[in-house]
């Protein structure tokens, strides 16, 4: 997705808060595979993993105006997935006997102080994403780079081509006002299209 794919997570978050659908699409392109991957690791079931990911992204959109502008997008998504998975664990709606696993973990950890805090956990998760098996990494990168033309975006979102162009234009204005550090390169790229 031209222009949008060059935006940082922070810029996309700011646009998302304005109700920008294309920013939402770009966030999905950027994170869906990682989120699916994480969810699947816990649930080991395609259907429930899909369901969690769909819920996390649709909730992100529905609650976008209430988002904290300073949050870290990847961390927010990770925590949203974790909350949903833990809900399923509490209801015993997971394939593994996670309740026994939790019980064993807690018993073991009583004398063990090697626990990570919230911030450290998110750092670990981010580092893990960067250290995926090479094939997996390649797939994530490919998935994220599938740039769509205005026309393709329009088709996907059921909008007119003109609307998308206007939206991209507005997005740049918002970004410009909100985040003064946008690289000028992005603007050149946009106006040349």
């Amino acid at each position: 997705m031209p222009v949008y794919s060059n935006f940082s997570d922070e810029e996309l978050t700011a646009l998302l808060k304005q109700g920008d659908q294309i920013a939402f699409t770009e966030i999905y392109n950027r994170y869906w595979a990682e989120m699916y991957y994480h969810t699947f690791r816990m649930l080991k079931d395609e259907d429930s993993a899909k369901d969690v990911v769909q819920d996390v992204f649709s909730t992100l959109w529905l609650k976008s105006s209430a988002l904290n502008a300073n949050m870290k997008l990847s961390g927010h998504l990770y925590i949203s997935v974790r909350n949903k998975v833990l809900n399923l664990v509490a209801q015993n709606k997971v394939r593994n006997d996670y309740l026994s696993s939790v019980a064993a973990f807690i018993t073991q950890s009583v004398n063990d102080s090697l626990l990570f805090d919230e911030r450290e956990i998110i750092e670990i998760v981010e580092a893990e994403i960067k250290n995926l098996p090479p094939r997996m990494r390649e797939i994530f990168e490919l998935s994220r780079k599938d740039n769509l033309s205005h026309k393709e975006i329009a088709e996907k979102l059921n909008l007119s081509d003109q609307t998308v162009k206007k939206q991209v234009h507005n997005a740049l204005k918002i970004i410009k006002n909100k985040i003064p550090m946008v690289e000028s390169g992005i603007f050149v790229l946009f106006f040349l299209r």
Partner: protein
Amino acid sequence: MNRDEAKEIIERYNNGLANAEERTLVENWYLDESRKYQFSDKDTDFLHLKEEIWKETLLRSGLIPKAPKRLLIWPRIVAAAAVLLVLAAGLYFYKGLNLKDNILAADIAPGGNKAILTLANGQKIVLNDAAKGELSRQSGISVSKSKDGELIYSFVDADQGSTENIHNTISTPKGGQYTIMLSDGTKVMLNSASSLTFPTSLNGQDRLVELNGEAYFEVAKHKNSRFRVISGRQTVEVLGTHFNVNAYTDEETIKTTLLEGAVKVSTPAAFTLIEPGEQAVWDKATENALTKHAVNTAKETAWINGIFSFEGDDLKSIMRQVSRWYDVNVIYVGPIPEEKYFGEISRTSKLSEVFRILELYNVHFEVSGKTIKVSYNQQSTVSDQPKSIK
């Protein structure tokens, strides 16, 4: 530390009530567990899911309207905007943001596993209180409650399998549901405000039960033995299948939805055979029309998975379901437009959470005791909602 204690800690965590130490433990367990799984290259074929997950995400976000399914009671699509409601299990994550706006002083909890069993001699057993284990023994049939809280009918010894015609009735109140295993191995999940009357011993060629309200049946197959469900003047006849019958007296129709196998639906005027994925609809008022059409069976049986699922349902239909599950009475104030609603709400949600979602679409609720006053704010339209691009 045992499973139950672990469950309690996770529940506290999910409800935002865990202390710092518990939070750390739960989060570290999660991290630890998620790192145990090693993705192999054959796992990489999930990429085809990208479009699928995106499409469903857009639907749940209300960004693309769902094409309404053809439903007999709503023959034409009103030009009203499609509204998508999404309340995921994880809503609690955002609770903190909205709690102050909550209009409800005292919240109303969702329903649960509650029912009353009436034995042939008139004795009543309250099932939510009943201890696990054997509850009663009647003419060679043992009635017990399993550890999952299901009610199980079983033959004590095969010879005694009596031919006596003893009937029991299980009924759920508003806000109750219950699962029962009949003596032939048929499993029935009874929705709220419903009742099922059945012979304690189901071993003949004709197994006959009577249903009021809604139930989902998984009928055990027995050679040369049919199973019939009577609801008012409609009869459903099967050999061994999975199906759902919705026969509430306050609904205009009786809907029979088939998931597996084959069933025959008969009314005084007509009968029809339906196939898996189809629903037979009988209009009780006109009595003559018995129609069948393809349905989304997941939606029709969403309740057995703890979900309210709406696909073009209007507010009054939604409120009838709410009234049965939350045990409340509903009064309408002023005109209620025929908006169509789409989406899913968990049946474990508190009533205030259901209202909070509906209030996004200009529906207003006022609660006093068990009575809910519903009104509609005509000023703005739902199309002003999330669609930011026009």
